[in-house]
């Protein structure tokens, strides 16, 4: 008897949850974006090369959080943002270096396995006008999101962002 009472209640609750987004207007406010597993290759002030951390853009600031420390930069000081792609060894770091000395060419074999990564190059000016260049790598497909967010918050870029894929045109009827 109790089960019969519970089941409709659950349905009503689920229906109510699904209906909520229909009544709430979509938010167009800038969403903060954070990319974990990013690596600062070089150039970001006060961060050692090849530090791993989380790169995020929020409230007009580009922030790189590594461990307990975080370094930030005003987005408005960025004069150029350029994205690219690269690849890195699937087994990297100390283990990767050790594996290169593996017997029967096993290290070389392991070198064949690589993961694709995105790169983002940022140029910015410090308080005295000096130019800085910082390079970050991150998981594939994330660099363009960071770039879009940076440009939306006031960063400049020499390569404009490509517009989203246009709606496919209807094919002409075959005659």
């Amino acid at each position, binding site marked *: 008897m109790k089960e019969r009472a519970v089941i409709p209640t659950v349905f009503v609750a689920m229906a109510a949850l699904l209906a909520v987004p229909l009544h709430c207007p979509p938010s167009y406010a800038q969403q903060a974006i954070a990319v974990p597993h990013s690596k600062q290759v070089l150039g970001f002030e006060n961060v050692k090369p090849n530090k791993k951390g989380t790169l995020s853009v929020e409230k007009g600031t580009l922030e790189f959080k590594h461990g307990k420390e975080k370094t930030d930069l005003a987005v408005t000081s960025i004069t150029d943002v350029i994205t690219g792609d*690269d690849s890195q060894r699937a087994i990297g770091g100390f283990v990767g270096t050790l594996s290169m000395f593996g017997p029967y060419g096993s290290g070389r074999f392991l070198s064949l396995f690589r993961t694709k990564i995105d790169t983002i*190059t940022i140029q910015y000016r410090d308080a005295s006008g*000096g130019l800085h260049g910082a*390079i970050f790598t991150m998981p594939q497909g994330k660099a363009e999101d960071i770039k879009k967010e940076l440009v939306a918050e006031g960063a400049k870029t020499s390569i404009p962002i490509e517009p989203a894929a246009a709606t496919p045109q209807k094919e002409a009827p075959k005659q």
Partner: protein
Amino acid sequence: MKKLSQWCALAFFVAALLFAGSARAKDEPKPQKISASAIQIVPVQSDEVKIPAEFQMALYEHLIEELQKSGKFQHVYRDGDKAASDSADVITLRGNVTGFKQGSERKRQVTTVSGATSITIHCQFVDRSGAVKLERDITGKVRFLGGNLRATYDFAKKVTKVVDESF
């Protein structure tokens, strides 16, 4: 006996040549060192040969880092630094990419002999009046270990060596 004398004559001739060579080297005046208390680094231009943005910035940052480490100059200024205009004898380092071959880290690791990355830049050290004090073609390479960007580090090391010899 005759052969021995021939060998002696040959050895004497070689020794005489070596001595003459070293004496000439001593006579040649050493190139005068250029004096400058500060250097300003400008990002390399890639008018004819295009290089990826990350290479351009890596070259710039590595140059600044290596020249600061060398201790040859009191100040190493970045491009656009307002403080550089106050310095009396500042030298500007400009570069133009003349050759670039982007290799492959995978090829290097798998084959060892192929996949090298190299970048050649025509470097000019220019004084405040615009006169070129020194110019060289310098090549940075990565042949075995490391990513492609390591060629930019190699380039910066070589530039620092040239600076050590000439300043």
